[in-house]
């Protein structure tokens, strides 16, 4: 085991109580993620990707059983005290959501929403927090950040909102960034910009990223390693090149086939 692992997950499983007994949605998932690397998790809809992320954040729905272990820079996340988790969330581990249209509160200004993260975790005053937020907006490539802080979410375009969400997640410079389909709701050009931004920020801040998506094209662009998930189980994982060149499992093969079908001209995705 090398250097510092930002995230080490061991035998993580999530079980929901259902009317007809228990239902396991994430089963015995293990992976490790060093600092500064991007792990892509791919899989079809409903395979448990989002449940995995929520379990890492301690936000599994009430009644869910979470087992196994997940270490965030050595700190156990599974079964941790609620207060401990609350201090970690948004601070050492953060998340970017799929839909930038709904992940911002429509009634509050961008500035208020960004600042409150810093007020909660860093104990900054509102004006200090706003200043810091403005610098972060600049860092994610938003022009006229001072003006944006005073605007409401509906005044921003989709791509800009996703940048705001990214800025929000990065405010406390987390060790690990979880990105749940961060580009799915965006059009292709904006998608490319956001992915470039993600790569650039990873470089500058040295954080580890877990990128969840069902789009193999996206993974080919940015991921270092890829894990493929199917029915709650990680069926295959490895460096991106290896996985794309010689997919072992049928799940991986079908995901790749689907990507090729959508863009027949791009034979080799990597």
């Amino acid at each position: 085991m090398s250097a510092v692992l930002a995230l080490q997950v061991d035998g993580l499983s999530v079980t929901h109580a259902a009317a007809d007994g228990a239902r396991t949605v994430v089963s015995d998932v293990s992976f490790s993620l060093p600092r500064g690397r991007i792990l892509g998790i791919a899989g079809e809809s409903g395979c448990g990707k989002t449940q995995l992320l929520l379990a890492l954040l301690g936000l599994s729905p009430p009644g869910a059983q979470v087992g196994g272990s997940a270490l965030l820079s050595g700190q156990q996340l599974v079964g941790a005290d609620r207060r401990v988790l609350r201090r970690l969330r948004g601070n050492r581990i953060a998340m970017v959501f799929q839909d930038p249209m709904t992940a911002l509160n429509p009634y509050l200004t961008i500035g208020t929403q960004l600042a409150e993260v810093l007020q909660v975790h860093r104990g900054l005053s509102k004006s200090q927090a706003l200043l810091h937020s403005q610098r972060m907006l600049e860092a994610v490539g938003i022009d006229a950040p001072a003006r944006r802080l005073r605007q409401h979410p509906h005044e921003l375009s989709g791509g800009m909102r996703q940048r705001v969400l990214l800025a929000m997640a990065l405010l406390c410079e987390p060790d690990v960034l979880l990105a749940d389909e961060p580009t799915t709701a965006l059009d292709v050009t904006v998608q490319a910009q956001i992915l470039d931004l993600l790569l650039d920020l990873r470089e500058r801040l040295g954080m580890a990223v877990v990128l969840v998506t069902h789009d193999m094209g996206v993974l080919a662009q940015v991921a270092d390693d890829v894990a493929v998930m199917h029915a709650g189980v990680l069926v295959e994982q490895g460096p991106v090149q290896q996985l794309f060149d010689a997919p072992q499992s049928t799940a991986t093969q079908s995901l790749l086939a689907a990507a090729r079908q959508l863009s027949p001209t791009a034979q080799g995705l990597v």
Partner: protein
Amino acid sequence: MNSAPLPRWSLLLLLTIVVLAVVVPWISPWNYYTPSWDELDLEPTFVNGHWLGTDDLGRDLLVRLMWGCRISLLVAVAASLTSLFIGVLWGATAGYAGGRVDAWLMRTVDVLYAVPFIPFVIVLTVLFGRNIVLLFVAIGAVSWLDTARIVRGQTLALRQREFITAARVGGMSAAQIVRRHVLPNLAGIVAVYLTLTIPTVILVEAFLGYLGLGAQAPLTSLGVMIADGAAQLRSRPRLLICPALLLALLVLCCNRVGDALRDRFDPASGGGA
């Protein structure tokens, strides 16, 4: 904010009534409680200054009408605010906490719904005597139940929204989320509900007044005046017509404004944030 304009005339009329209710008793040479044996039952006239005439005890009808209006509005606003305060806190807590807390809070509401209103008010008056504060308490205690249900429903819907999850991921506590993310999002529907509660409360107060459970004489309210006027419908119809007309106007204007606000905040009708 784009959408249907507010009903300007209703708003203007409402404002006029409120201003008159405040100003008229102030500048009028008469008061609402001193009977005058020389001026019993005057017809409306500009000559002696009794613009709407006097009632059967010689008191100026306009001044009494405006006092009644004051009391009705006061009861309405105070009771609505009370019900709003309790209802929003109760409903938001139940909706956001969910599970067992939700069940207990809302079953309490269900139980309170089953308390019959009129006997409840009668018991209160028997215990505490007739008192204007009692009216606030009685009406407020009953009308917060609806508010609580509506707010809970809205909160349940809000809780599923992604920005609430985003706030949790950001490390906010439940109390912080309710205060900073849930309550502001409820502001629209609560404002609408307030404007729709006020006319209801005015009517309930009038109803209680009609039953003799309202304001204590010589103080009056629109409901009490209507009750008194109805008794003398044959001989002095204006004692009924004036307060009834004012009550109808007041309720109509409030409802119109409330409806317009609702349309404005309803995302389905293309308004609101």
